[in-house]
Every structure is written in C-alpha cells, then in structure tokens.
C-alpha cells in the first residue's frame, strides 16, 4: 500500500496517531498552521490526537480556547481570512451544533460572498460516529448537514494511511474542509504508513476491492464492516470507500455501478436524507439502464442515537451490510 503514496521508510501506526503525526508534519512544514480548540494543550485532546504538539509548538500554535464551539469556528474563520492555515478541533460531532452559525454564515459562504477575494483555508477536525457506548451526543454521524451545505469540502478517511494523505491535503487546501474522523476505529488497527510527506486527492474515492456483482458505497467506520460482509456473501463485491463526501466522486460511483449493475449504500447515519439518498438518486438518474436490481440503503434508523444498551441494534454492522448485498444480488425483475 505504501507504494501508492510515497517511497521510503514507513512506520506502523493507528488512525489517531496518523492524525497526530500529520498535524505535526504540517505544522513543521508551514508556520502558519495553527490548531485551535479546548483540551488540546497539555493533555493533547480527549482522544490524544494532538498529544505532545503543545510541548513542541507552544501555546500560540496549539491554542487552548475557551469552551465555545461557535467561538472556535468564528475565530478560526477570522484567522483564516488573515492568511493563517487553521485547524480547529470540535471535540465530538454532537457538539458542533452551537457552531452552526459561524459554519453557515462565514465558513461556507465567505469565499463566494467576496467574489473569490477571501480564502477560507481551514480544516475542522471532528471525531464522529458511534460504537463507543458513551453518553448522549457523543456518537453522532450527521455528515449530511455538512454535505448539504455548499462551499465546504467534507472528507472522511477510514485507514491510517488515507488519514495522513487526506489530512495533509485538507490542511494545504484553500477550501474549508470538514474532516470527519471515525473515532470507533481510532485505535482498532495499525497499518504501515509512509513517514515522508504525501497528499491524496480530495475528490477521489478509493476502490477497497474490485468485484463484478454488486457495488457497495461506504465510508469511514463502516468500511471495515463492508469488507467483512464481502467475505461472507456469495457474490463478487466491489467496495468503494468514498472518503470524500463533498464533492462526491460521482464518476467513480457511476462507473462502478454501470460495471456491476447493482448497488448498496452502507452508512452509519440515519437513513432519511442521509448521504445514501443522494447516492441512490444519482445512480437512478444516470445509470438506471444498467441496474439489475433496486438500490438498497443499509443504514442507521431515523431515530436519535440511542442509549448504549441499544446502540448495537441501531448501528449498521457486517450482518446488515451482508443482508443488503444478498437482497440486491438475489433480486430479479
């Protein structure tokens, strides 16, 4: 895998360490890169994603702020307008809501509103998703809110190596990027990641595996379940890890579905107006002639993220993915 990205030395790291290492590398590379958020300093974030950075770069570059999501995003936007490359952290996606004002009013809109005069080079890092049995608002997967907003990129890695390339590209991008980190897989596995700098394109999906019977469109923490499901079912499954959710890698999606003729969208978010709705509509509009079965969406349900006793029943897993794959591969018109 490393050969895809960069040559040279690699080290074996998990996803959250890849985040940390990439932040360090980008901060060394460009002194305009500043991190902004609370609990980022001495403890290095509640998930340790900024561990040791405060010691290395000091309090003016790893900035512990007051406890105010809207303040963090608004200040970050102002700093970005003045040429800083800012990487704000929101502690949990469920606590993004107070920041929606600044997100909608300035971050997504400033570039367009100024006729291209103001850039908004900021990358908002946010751990998202369930599976950690925490309390309310700590398990949200509400990426659709961001995808539904023009003027921002939405990126969601699923492996340590992707995390590094996508995060570096996001930080270097002049667009605002919502960078969603699947915290359920922060520490679940390691991978050889090149130590040298590299970036990955912000508008391309990754083909996790090729197959001829059915396309599974997925991202983030669900990718691993899609892979397990693909091993279990009696079908040749192609898996696309979208990894960039906005703008969507539409060509790759359509090419894959035209090849396989079947499609399952597999995501953690609630179903109604989840990203699966858009993907399904796209396939319907541009590839319906190729479809051998209706598209199915294997997703979370249209409910508030439940308490931890019931969270497993709510969350999509390999079984739910496998069922959807089986349903569309055995369907005949």
């Amino acid at each position, binding site marked *: 895998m490393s050969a895809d990205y960069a040559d040279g030395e690699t080290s074996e790291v998990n996803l959250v360490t890849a985040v940390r290492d990439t932040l360090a590398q980008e901060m060394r590379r460009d002194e305009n890169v500043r991190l902004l958020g609370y609990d980022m300093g001495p403890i290095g974030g509640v998930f340790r994603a900024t561990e040791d950075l405060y010691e290395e770069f000091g309090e003016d570059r790893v900035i512990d702020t007051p406890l105010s999501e809207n303040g963090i995003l608004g200040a970050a936007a102002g700093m970005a307008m003045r040429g800083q490359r800012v990487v704000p952290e929101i502690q949990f996606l469920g606590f993004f809501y107070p920041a929606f004002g600044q997100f909608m009013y300035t971050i997504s809109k400033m570039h367009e509103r100024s006729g291209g005069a103001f850039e908004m080079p900021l990358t908002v890092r946010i751990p998202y998703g369930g599976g950690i049995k925490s309390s309310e608002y700590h398990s949200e997967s509400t990426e659709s809110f961001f995808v539904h907003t023009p003027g921002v990129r939405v990126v969601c890695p699923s492996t340590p190596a992707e995390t590094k390339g996508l995060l570096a590209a996001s930080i270097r991008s002049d667009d605002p990027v919502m960078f969603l980190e699947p915290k359920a897989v922060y520490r679940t596995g390691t991978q050889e990641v090149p130590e040298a700098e590299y970036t990955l394109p912000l508008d391309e999906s990754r083909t996790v595996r090729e197959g001829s019977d059915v396309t599974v469109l997925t991202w983030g923490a669900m990718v691993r379940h899609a892979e397990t499901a693909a091993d279990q079912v009696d079908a040749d499954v192609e898996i696309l890890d979208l990894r960039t959710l906005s703008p969507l890698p539409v060509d790759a999606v359509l090419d894959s579905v035209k090849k396989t003729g079947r499609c399952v969208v597999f995501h953690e978010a609630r179903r109604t107006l989840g990203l699966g709705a858009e993907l399904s509509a796209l396939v319907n509009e541009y590839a319906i002639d190729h479809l051998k079965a209706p598209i199915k969406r294997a997703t979370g349900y249209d409910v508030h993220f*439940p308490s931890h006793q019931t969270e497993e029943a709510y969350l999509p897993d390999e079984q739910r993915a496998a069922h959807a794959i089986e349903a569309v591969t055995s369907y005949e018109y």
Partner: protein
Amino acid sequence: MAKWTESRPDEDFSRVLAPDGTLSGEAPVDEATALRMYETMKLSRRYDEKMLSLQRRGEISILSRSWGEEAIPVGSAAALEAGDWCFPTYRQTPSKLYWGGPLDRAVAGLMGHEPETIEEHLPLDEADEPAVNFSPIYIPLAANVTNAVGSAMADKFEDGNTVTLSYIGDGSTSQGDFYEALNFAGVFDAPAVTICHNNQWAISVPSHRQTAADTFAQKAEAAGMPHERVDGNDVFAVYAATQRAVERARSGEGPTLLECVTYRVDDHNTADDAGAYRDESEQEFWAERDPVDRLEAYLRSEDALDDEAIEAIEADADERVEEAVDRARDVPEDDPERIFDNHLQSESWNERHQREELRAEQRGENPFTDFTGDGL
C-alpha cells in the same frame, strides 16, 4: 503548574461555615434541614463511590462525579420550594437526591437503558415524584440555562409564583447560550436563578483560560442582573445566597447569577486523568475544605451528630444505594424497538417500515426484502 485564578480563594466570597466547622453569624437553616443536607451529601458520596465501582466493572460506561462539590447542588436545592423548577447538568445529582429523586432510575440511566425502559420497569408513583420539578439531565453544555430562563419566563407570563434554578460549569459560561440566557433573563425580568459551579477546571482547561474577568459572577453585570460570589464548599453559604436569589425572583425582582467557588476534586470523568494536567498540591488544599467534613464538624459541635448517628447515616446510605443498584440490575435488557419510541405523536411509513426491518434483523432474517413498499 497551571496558573490558578483562585489564588486567594478564602478572601473574596461570602462564607458562613469555616473549614473547621465553626459558624460565623447564625445558621441559616434549622437543625433538621442541616441534617437532611448532611444525609444527602453522604448519600451522594456513597452513590458516587458505588457508581465508580460499577464503572470499573464495566456495568456502566462513563461517569462524572459530584465528589467534593456536593455543597452547591445540595445547598441550592434546599432553598427551593415544592413546585419550583430545576435544570441540572451531569454534575448535580445531589440536587435531585435532596428532593428524594429515585436512585434506582439514576443507576439504570447510567447503565445505558433507554428512558422508556426505565419508566416501564422502575415506575414512579406520583406521590414519589420529587416535589421540585427536574428536567432531564443536560449533556450539551449551557443549553439548560437558556431553557431554564424560558421556563422562568413562562411563570412570569402566567403570573406564577415559582422559580427556576439552573446550573452551569465555569467552562460552560464561555458558551454563547449562557450569555444569551442571562440577557433574556435580564430583559424579561425572569424569575431565574443561575448557579455557576466554579470548580476551576473544564476537563483540562483551567478557569483563567475561560475568562479574563476577575470573577464568573461579574458576567451578570452585562446582563444587568445582581450577582453574588460564595464559598461553594460551604453548604450554608450556598443555601443563604440561593435563598436570597430565590426570594428576589419569587417577589418579582428578577434573576440572579451566583458563582460558587469550589474545586473539581475528581477526574473530569472516568475517561479522564487529571494527574496529567494539574498539581497534586491543589488537591490537598481543597481536601482541607471538604464540604461534608465541614458540615459534620458543625453538626457535631451542636450535638446534632455523634459517631453513632454518623454510622447509622452511612449504613442507611449504603443500604439505599445497594437496593437501588439491585433494582436497576433487575431491569431486563432493553427491547431494541424502544429506540423508535417517543419521537413523534403519530406513526409514519418510515417508522413502521424501519421497525419491521429491525425486527427482521433481530430474528436473523433479511430486512431488505421489501421491493414494493408493502412491507416485508
């Protein structure tokens, strides 16, 4: 060591009970109330202790404790009357305990049961409802304060005579919601009392990183409302200040902000390690100011408590907590279908359909076999 705002914590707030339990002036409550305060704090400690052991055993997932800060929720809740309202966050369980809130439900909540399951299996008679009304605990910070002000406004518009109390941490006063709440309270003269637990830490961020103001109390200035600053480890001082604020609110004189200076003795929660960001010497300083020891010393000096009585109170707390845990453990596992309950008042196609899907999945069947919309 992190810079510490409260460098003179003894000197710039009101206090009734000194750390050694001696009283300055008169006790603001009678002996029976003081004992009830003491019992509630002891019960809360026992509960906190037990919950930590359940957390360590994996029976509950995450826990934030009230340890060392009990004087604030207990002293303030004691100043309320039946029919008043209270909007707590995760750190004020003792407020509810003071008013007889059911322990078993609290434990079941920490065990991760859906509220509907708790309601069904640990039902509460109307007679057992706490006389003060409590909102569900808020996890999103500062949202409760805004709602509390709305609750107070509702009373005001209906010429009611009730008061709404809410709590916020020092860190959470940085949220826009907090300022917006105070501003509304001021403009509408709402009978709202807001209590800031200044425990000096918001997870790892010290209070001087939250504000450049000298005190948290003075944040009320800009909203045009009275404020007081009290020793948050002195249950009598908290009671007396809340009592004054409640009286003001009840007699139509509007809102108050109280800052109660205390210290978060414990880690922020069971996923945190405070040793990584703060100095042990702070702990020692605050251990000498412990609110329970202080009240105990006072009650002993009044001959209202002796070793025997304390032992009885501890035994009673122990028994109540154990019984509550047993009852919570007896609650059967949640039916996953509970997740569909209590969203909207009527049924929808999506809800019906998704319930069917979940049921099929639970039976090991394929939930994706409906290709017509007519059902599985």
